[in-house]
């Protein structure tokens, strides 16, 4: 009797749960597009203190949405899970300072690149480091899973071979790396230029830091979408081209970065 009750309850429980999940629209709808973003990714996409989403990529995405007449829903995601979210259909676009790389191109479709980016090393002025060579035997940090990390590993002659232990310290997010740099446990932090500039602009001790340019290949930010989503790729490319031709992309770049770094 007890056993039957337990089985019955178990079934009811499962039915209840599956009922909850029904009716939820997930991915690949023809109406709205779900844009996956990390809402702490300044200055590309982040929440204001009033809880509103803002940032360069959010602004561009909204304009693209207007051009292609599709409603956009912004969904916060964990950045390390972005390609899985895309594959599972829980998001339709990855659009948040997403660098186009050959490895990623094997898994997702990319739009035309719309923004130029570069890897830089942030150092403390007090350490008197002015060239990459001076990072010899120093501890260097990088965000795990970032393009900076890939660059570091793929072109070891530039930086990896000279830093302490030939191994970088990896951080989950940019702010932790910056905190560690501040605390002096690392002497250099390899990150995207757009993020480095935002951080230095908003830190009260900004005058204590400087940015070293690296010779890593320059990078491009593009929009990621599911493989074989040809129609969507075409739509987004056309919309981005339209924004570029009408100067809207340039003015957004100037508004967010103080200069035109679009392409």
């Amino acid at each position, binding site marked *: 009797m*007890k*056993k039957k*009750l*337990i089985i019955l*309850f178990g079934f009811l*429980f499962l039915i209840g*749960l599956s009922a*909850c*999940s029904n009716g*939820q629209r*997930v991915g690949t709808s023809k109406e709205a597009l779900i844009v*996956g973003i990390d*809402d*702490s*990714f*300044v200055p590309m996409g*982040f*929440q*204001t*203190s*009033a*809880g509103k989403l803002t940032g360069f990529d959010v602004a561009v995405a909204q304009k693209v949405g207007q051009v292609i007449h599709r409603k956009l829903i912004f*969904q*916060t*995601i*964990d950045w390390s*899970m972005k390609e*899985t*979210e895309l594959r*599972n*259909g*829980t998001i339709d676009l990855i659009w948040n300072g997403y660098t186009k790389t050959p490895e990623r191109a094997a898994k997702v479709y990319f739009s035309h690149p719309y923004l130029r980016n570069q890897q830089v090393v942030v150092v403390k002025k007090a350490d008197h480091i002015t060239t990459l060579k001076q990072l010899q035997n120093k501890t260097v940090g990088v965000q795990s899973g970032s393009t900076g990390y890939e660059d570091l590993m793929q072109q070891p002659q530039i930086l990896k071979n000279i830093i302490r232990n030939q191994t970088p310290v990896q951080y989950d*997010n*940019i*702010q932790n790396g*910056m*905190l560690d740099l501040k605390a002096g446990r690392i002497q250099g932090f390899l990150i995207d230029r757009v993020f480095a500039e935002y*951080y230095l602009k*908003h*830190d*009260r001790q900004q005058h204590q830091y400087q940015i070293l340019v690296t010779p890593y290949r320059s990078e491009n930010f593009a929009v990621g979408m599911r493989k074989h989503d040809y129609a969507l790729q075409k739509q987004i490319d056309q919309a981005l081209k339209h924004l570029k031709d009408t100067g809207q992309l340039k003015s957004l770049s100037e508004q967010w970065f103080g200069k035109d770094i679009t392409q």
Partner: protein
Amino acid sequence: MTYIGKILPSLLNGAKVTLLLFAITLILSIPLGVLLSWGLRSKVKPLKWILSCYVWLMRGTPLLLQLIFIFYGLPTIGIVFERFTAAAVAFTLNYAAYFAEIFRGGLQAVSQDQREAAAVLGLSRLQAFRFIVWPQVLKIVLPSIGNEVINLIKDSSLVYVLGIGDLLRAGNVATARDVTLLPLLLVGIIYLAMTAILTYIQTKIEQRFSYYE
């Protein structure tokens, strides 16, 4: 001070998500834990074996892994949960396993003699459970349950991996945006406040059940 006022609403919004997940998990996992604990003491061997495996699985793997598996892994075999549902399912299944073990311990602590004595006095098994065993079990399990409840409110921060904006994530977002650690300090204070309230409630409940003393 003005800065605190500015970011507090977004933190409190995050706290709402944390509390909602907390409440749903607690309401679902405690009854499920009680049922499982009966099963774990069942004389039906296959049932007992299956439930022991379940408890082993849930307690033996990280909750973070279970969250990832349920939200990101299950869609590959066609089971798609909405974000918050996935979090509630993972937390309920995980916590039910812990509660089951707590209740099993509580049930075992009441000696078999008492059940036999109740039978001799002519009480049915259900009556013996309701009036003799259960009141004692409740008293025994309350402190352990309180432990799990406080763990739960903090564990809820693991939902970041599903992109759910809970209290800790709200603090992280503000930290990234404003380049200061102050939001995280506030997050800590809010967690402490929630735990203080829960501890107070637990003390009250334990007083209410302080019979036989």
